[in-house]
């Protein structure tokens, strides 16, 4: 008999004569303590994200490509990885085209196998979009897509992320319901709440463990 058969038979035998416990999930418990007035959401998100060393810049729909370019230059980054198939990646390309002095853009447009070494060793920064954020925990929601692959927000040491202020939700439960997560999860979905960190040595917090050392979020206040 297979292991699956044996395990399930044992478990079923142990439950013989019992009835499953009813689902009495109380959504108030995971939503009520985590509600914010609309004007408070951004401040709450910012407070939590900055507490874990996230850098936040408030921008507008009109000026964010310029603000991104400023940050890239200020950090003296040698290149920036973008997702050319996304609308925000396109905006970056357009802005960069007008400013030849900016460091070169790299496009994530081919399978990782074709350029893994370059991604690991020669890609100092990346820029991605987000599906919104969560005020209660200070988290960005990132669902990688074929156009914007998952390693973009992980491997480069500096990660720039774009967030619309109107897409900041109160809490995780609300996001799961409003975005209907249960009816279709992508291959990989992520909550990102700051740059990579560890406290494994003497509980001393150190940033830049394995993922990005810097997380920079551009928040569009008017979008």
């Amino acid at each position, binding site marked *: 008999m297979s292991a699956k058969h044996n395990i399930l038979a044992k478990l079923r035998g142990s*439950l013989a004569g019992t009835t499953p416990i009813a689902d009495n999930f109380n959504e108030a418990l995971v939503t009520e303590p985590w509600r914010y007035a609309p004007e408070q959401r951004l401040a709450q998100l910012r407070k939590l994200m900055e507490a874990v060393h996230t850098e936040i810049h408030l921008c507008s729909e009109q000026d964010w490509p310029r603000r991104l370019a400023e940050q890239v230059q200020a950090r003296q980054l040698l290149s920036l990885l973008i997702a050319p198939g996304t609308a925000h990646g396109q905006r970056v390309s357009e802005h960069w085209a007008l400013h030849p002095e900016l460091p070169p853009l790299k496009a994530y447009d081919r399978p990782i196998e074709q350029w893994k070494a370059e991604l690991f060793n020669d890609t100092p920064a990346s820029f991605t979009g987000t599906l919104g954020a969560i005020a209660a925990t200070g988290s960005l929601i990132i669902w990688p897509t074929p156009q914007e692959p998952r390693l973009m927000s992980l491997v480069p040491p500096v990660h720039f992320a774009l967030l619309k202020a109107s897409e900041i939700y109160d809490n995780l439960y609300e996001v799961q319901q409003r975005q209907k997560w249960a009816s279709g999860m992508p291959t990989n979905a992520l909550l990102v709440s700051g740059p990579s960190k560890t406290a*494994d040595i003497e509980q001393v917090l150190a940033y830049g463990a394995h993922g990005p050392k810097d997380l920079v979020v551009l928040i569009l206040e008017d979008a």
Partner: protein
Amino acid sequence: MNTQTRIPALEIEEDFRARAHEALGDPQLRGNFRRAMDSLMTKRAAAFSDPEEREDLRSLGNAIRARALSKLPELLEQLDRNLTRNGVQVHWAETIEEANAIVLGIVNAHSARQVIKGKSMVSEEMEMNDFLGERGVECLEADMGEYIVQMDHEKPSHIIMPAIHKNAGQVGKLFHEKLGVDYTTDVDQLIQIGRRVLRQKFFEADIGVSGVNFAVAETGTLLLVENEGNGRMVTGVPPVHIAVTGIEKVVENLRDTVPLLSLLTRSALGIPITTYVNMISGPRQPGELDGPQEVHLVLLDNGRSQAFADSELRQTLNCIRCGACMNHCPVYTRIGGHAYGEVYPGPIGKIITPHLVGLAKVPDHPSASSLCGACGEVCPVKIPIPALLRRLREENVKAPDSPHQAMRGQGSKYSRKERFIWNAWARLNRSPALYRVFGFLATRLRNLVPNSVGPWTQNHSAPKPAPRSLHEMAREHLHKPSGDL
């Protein structure tokens, strides 16, 4: 890694008492644990600043886990179905031998030589590093704490903070000796050294191995929390990802993970959420440019179905592995994780280990507790740990001919002499005549109590009865003329 050198904690050369005694005499170790546990307790308390919210959430956490266990077989089948639909290959293993064989099969199918592993306690149960190492496959830990203990041929001393028993000086010395870098006690520098070495390993690895925090039956999703990014690296960079987990980790709905996540990260580290919450629902899909081509899930029993069989012991499987019980345990804080000699230390270790390895192998675990109740009080899913410890003490001394077989290795502390004494004591207390005779003799012969009565007098003075029993004094008092008070 040098596979000849065995990991010390695996060798149970001495018993628990000897190891505990040794740990108690190590001021460095005790200082390291005291500081870490104090800080973790403070952080947890701050993260649950509203006691009402905390207690409501704990009740919800308990209800979610109990509900999942009450329909565990159906949920496991649903999980299997949905993961399979998503393209994940699901494997089932009754024993660690079967689980290791499954992993080795995948390793061989890909002619893999390098495996990189995120933090996974189930892989510790399997001793996967040694198993693969002995077969010529490098299996390297990528969590900073796990990386440090593996480098020193140790085992984790805490389920969340594996290297908590070491201070920065000890880590600096280890890195200096093993990696040839300059000695430093600067934590940032030490972490950057680890980052540099492990980045190369993520890049090279043929297979990534991870654990699972919650497996969601409804969607076929494996949820993994972490702060470092090593979990994302091992599940996203190598061409193959193998997740290993216990059969109890399944939850019914995606929404169930909301309170459990909050309970987990706040109880474990006192933080509202970990840096990364990774939700994996399948391998790379057509058109996607990265992610593993294959994802496997190994569901391991290894004694869990035994705990499941008994409705009281089943509560052990509520555990979400936050480590709060050990952070708050006065025994764990003083002896550290290695003294337990097993994969899971502290209060949760004492109630889960007997099911994994048999109670006879860890007969001292249930009694290594003052039953102060702190573990049960902080448990985010309300496992009645003190009650389960008492239950295991009963199982420990169960007569060999007992018709009730609750667990492997029960009754290893059974002693006919001890049982005889307890039976006699019970009879004495049920018979008023016998009790009076006993009371009279015990008080009149009180000076015959020897100064040394076995283990009791190691730390206490010998128990000497009072000159007169309370009964006797009460009787005398009642016979005195009234108004004498």
